[in-house]
């Protein structure tokens, strides 16, 4: 330290507003050691004393995909193997996104003891939650890709479009969890409401059915579902090497709107968080 360091000011004003939210997100991101360690601890804790451990993730995923492919494959005009790959990728992506929404509602409430005892940026808990959910997502994706290779699928250059799509997933996780975490901490009904909505999302997102086979009304509903487009930008380049431009445009606007909403709402709410949990 050279000259006198600046004093840190702490008040309702310094903890509120979009700028405080950005500062929180940046400072929290820099504490990667903390959220990685927390996430790993939670993963271990979840499977501690379980004999099969992480194999449960793989097992339940494989069974679910197989059952859907068998039961819903008969309703689809697609080739059986194509449909299996479609379900395998779509389901992994959906579960990851949906998991972010559900975990988001509890992200701060479940970290109450740390929030009330340690002055860390709140975003640390958001990054922890996202990082933890990457383990099952990565595992499922690995199984899907290995299975697809066995079925004769080969990746193309256009498949690399899945990488920015994954980037969009991470950004989605950050703003949606931060926003839902605050709102659900203050209004406890939100968690229940989100639980009800996500069940509907499972049917209105094309995972078990293809848009080609869907009724016009179903297609219209699913077009307004952000998860449809988030799943599509990831699945399409991997599956048939196309870049779904319309879905990317939708995701772009949705992301911008989400970030703007989060900065505004969190700017108002975040200084009150410790009083709600």
């Amino acid at each position, binding site marked *: 330290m050279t000259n*006198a*360091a*600046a*004093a*840190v*000011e*702490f*008040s*309702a*004003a*310094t*903890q509120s507003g979009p700028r405080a939210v950005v500062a929180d997100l940046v400072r929290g991101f820099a*504490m990667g*050691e*903390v959220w990685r*360690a*927390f996430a790993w*601890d939670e993963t271990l*804790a979840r499977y*501690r004393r379980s004999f099969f451990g992480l194999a449960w993730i793989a097992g339940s995923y494989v069974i679910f995909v197989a059952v859907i492919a068998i039961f819903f494959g008969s309703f689809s005009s697609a080739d059986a193997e194509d449909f299996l790959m479609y379900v395998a990728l779509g389901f992994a992506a959906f579960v990851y996104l949906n998991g972010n929404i559900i975990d988001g509602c509890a992200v701060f409430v479940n970290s109450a*003891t*740390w*929030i*009330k*005892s*340690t*002055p*860390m940026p709140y975003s640390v808990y958001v990054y922890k939650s996202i990082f933890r959910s990457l383990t099952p997502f990565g595992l499922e994706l690995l199984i899907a890709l290995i299975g697809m290779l066995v079925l004769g699928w080969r990746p193309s250059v256009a498949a690399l479009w899945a990488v920015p799509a994954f980037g969009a997933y991470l950004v989605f996780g950050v703003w949606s969890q931060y926003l839902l975490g605050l709102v659900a901490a203050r209004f406890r009904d939100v968690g229940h409401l989100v639980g009800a909505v996500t069940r509907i999302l499972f049917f209105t997102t094309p995972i078990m059915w293809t848009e080609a086979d869907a009724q016009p009304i179903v297609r219209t509903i699913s077009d307004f579902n952000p998860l449809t487009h988030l799943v599509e930008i990831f699945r399409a380049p991997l599956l048939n090497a196309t870049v779904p431009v319309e879905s990317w445009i939708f995701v772009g606007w949705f992301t911008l709107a989400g970030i703007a909403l989060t900065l505004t709402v969190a700017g108002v709410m975040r*200084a*009150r968080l*410790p*009083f*709600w949990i």
Partner: protein
Amino acid sequence: MVSLIAENVSLRFPIYSQAQIYEHAVGDAHDARLISGAGGRIIAVQALKEVSLSLGEGDRLALLGRNGSGKTTLLQVLTGILPPGGGRVRSLGRATSIININLGMQFEASGHRNITLRGLAAGYSRARIEEKRSEIVAFCELGEFLDMPLTTYSSGMLMRLSFSIATAFDPQILLLDEWLSTGDEAFRAKATKRMQEFVNKAGILVLASHNRQLLLDNCNKALWLEKGEVKAFGEVTELLGEYERRAA
């Protein structure tokens, strides 16, 4: 330069759910800390009201006050955990606090793992934590229990671990709540010695406790809180004497 300044700090805890109030109690005069909204429902508890204090190098402050007087809340505000509704806190220096030994620990994880986690959470690098590990291990005297999950610890053992971690990284500002009294005689003597070493290095100590000896051993100044407001501020022996006469 180390300093810790609170300017007109006020804080209300909002209440969203409330135990049923007896009919006859409605309309009666409430405790001044209970804030009523429209319709007489109690909507908040005024935990702190216009609290100001200013501490500099070598100041060791005792927080005095009865249960519910706002001691812990004030510590939480000074630490940067609870943003005050009014007023502000300005601090200069690395601060560490232990406000509740049951919070901020992973109980499923081992003592060693918690040393790492707490160190990281306080913003220290892994290399720095490893540097300090042997010192923490020696000071807390928990031996092989450091490899056991925290669920196997007694409250005194938890306190030893918390205190050892909190003081190992040479904080410049140390804020401690009540819990220190759970330690046995031997550890309390050791802790007092370490706190004095720490204060000799020109730090700031804020200690909330009901333990007379603990406060006299460690503090030179005192702040007396009553129902969330500053009742008096002064030299510790004097203020403690007056506080005890009033309580008697």
